[in-house]
């Protein structure tokens, strides 16, 4: 039995090497029943390769994937019945209509009810396109059709690789609401990869951040929010002088200077007025002073940049 909160997908030391390139490196993921897991990473981080290994499309070099306690093997079918999948840009039979493409899926899945197609079409808002040939559909509509196909048999787990690729903002919002509804109404578990942070931020309950094939962090979204740090952001005419004044007069040690020259101060948040006065009296022009919170984007950038620096340093050697 797989009750709420139990591990439904896990990867153990999952590794994939293509020639000399390690695309995925010892990945240990845990996906729990009923959660929406956001798998975040830059382009080329190893998201799609991980998903392909999960689905048995690619054989791991090392490690393995388990879905509902059963090991995934390329060509194996036992675990696949629980899944609805969308891998990258979905492919369809261009000579067939939207309806017929779903009919192919219905037949392959052995579903008895033809009404399942109408339900999937309605759910994904494809009503007007049902008779259109798949070869004539826009990228966004193809993405919807991919979702309709993944949802057709009402799977327990949805594995979606960049599900909002090619969708306009309204379409992205619709997909987000649709996925949220699926989780709320049917308890569907969702594993979705993305490189669009705002999309993930508004949907997921748990996050995995991958960079260069390695899982940098796996965290509950609520925990991340609780951990998010507030800061003062300053834009000044002389960054170096401002940092010196902050250190000398306010004993500030916890600050960062961004690439665009902005200073983020994580201490003295209640002394913003004094900081402003001190800088101005030292003839440093303050063009911006705002109170902010570290966003998922900040967190993501920090993690992946740190990883980049660590990797670069280890390549250079001692």
């Amino acid at each position, binding site marked *: 039995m797989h009750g709420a909160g139990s591990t439904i997908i896990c990867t153990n030391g999952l590794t994939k090497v293509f020639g000399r390139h390690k695309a995925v490196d010892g990945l240990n993921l845990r996906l729990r029943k009923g959660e929406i897991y956001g798998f975040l990473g830059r382009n080329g981080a190893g998201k799609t390769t991980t998903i392909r290994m999960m689905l048995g499309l690619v054989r791991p070099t090392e490690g393995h994937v388990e879905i509902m306690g059963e090991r995934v093997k390329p060509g194996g*079918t036992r675990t696949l019945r629980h899944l609805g999948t969308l891998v990258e840009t979905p492919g369809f039979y261009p000579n067939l209509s939207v309806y017929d493409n779903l009919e192919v899926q219905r037949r392959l899945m052995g579903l008895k009810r033809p009404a399942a197609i109408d339900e999937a079409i309605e759910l994904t808002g494809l009503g007007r396109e049902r008779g259109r040939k798949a070869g004539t559909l826009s990228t966004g509509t193809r993405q919807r059709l991919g979702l309709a196909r993944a949802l057709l048999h009402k799977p327990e787990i949805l594995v979606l690789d960049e599900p909002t690729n090619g969708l306009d903002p309204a379409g992205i919002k619709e997909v987000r609401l649709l996925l949220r509804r699926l989780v709320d109404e049917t308890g569907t578990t969702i594993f979705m990869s993305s490189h669009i942070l705002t999309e993930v931020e508004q949907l997921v309950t748990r996050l995995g951040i991958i960079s260069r094939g390695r899982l940098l962090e796996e965290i509950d979204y609520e925990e991340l929010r609780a951990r998010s740090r507030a800061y003062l952001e300053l834009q000044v005419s002389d960054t170096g002088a401002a940092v010196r004044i902050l250190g000398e007069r306010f004993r500030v040690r916890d600050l960062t200077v961004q690439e665009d020259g902005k200073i983020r101060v994580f201490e003295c948040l209640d002394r913003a007025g004094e900081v402003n006065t001190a800088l101005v009296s030292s003839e440093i022009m303050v063009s911006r002073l705002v109170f902010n919170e570290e966003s998922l984007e900040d967190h993501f950038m920090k993690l992946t940049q740190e990883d980049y620096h660590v990797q670069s340093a280890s390549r250079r050697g001692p």
Partner: protein
Amino acid sequence: MFRALHAEVLKLKASPMLWISAVGISFAPFLNAIVCATTASRGTPWTWERFTEQNVNLIALLLGTMLFGLLACYVFGREFVEGTAKHVFTLPLTRTAMVLAKFAVLFVWSMALGVVAFASSLPLGWIAGLGRLSTTVAAKALSDHLYVAILVYLAMPLTSLVALVGRGYLPPMVFAAFATLAGVVAMNSSKYVFIVPWSIPGAMVFGVKRGLVRWGNPLVVLALTFIAGVMLNIVYVETAQVDT
């Protein structure tokens, strides 16, 4: 298996390849009708038997391997070309069933093309001035067309394997052209007929009749080629990775 077969049939709905293949196979009687009309005007008229024989020879020697190869590369290669492989391989259906369903569809399609070749030869033969066709000759002509379609079909698994390994249309098409050429060359020597499967349909309908080849052995080679070819297709698909 039945689910996969059902889906394979639906995949061909409204496919332009259905018409392209029908027009392609009709090219044999069309070409022969021109030759027939030309020779008749020189005072050496053909009979329906000769017309049928020429159609079957043309399909067995040249047209069949190329055209049926095109069907094989469409049925097997399209999952990669149209990007559906990464989806169908994640369905709870064995990959072996998918391969067998494709071979079943290819068989029915090949038989249908045999019928189309026969059916299109009727008006073309009549236009070429062949006159009345008896039921006996018509029945023999139909069975000859179906026979050659089966023979050419049996040599197809290697082309479908190239479509799978090459993951597209171009490699199997080049291979089908090569197979056609190799078949024609090997036909000239009964020694090589046995090692070039694509020459066997020609050998069977052309060489056996003229006593150049013994009936039994090439058929055994062709059957073994088919069985081994299908097994190679299954092994490849069962172990294939979809990483692009």
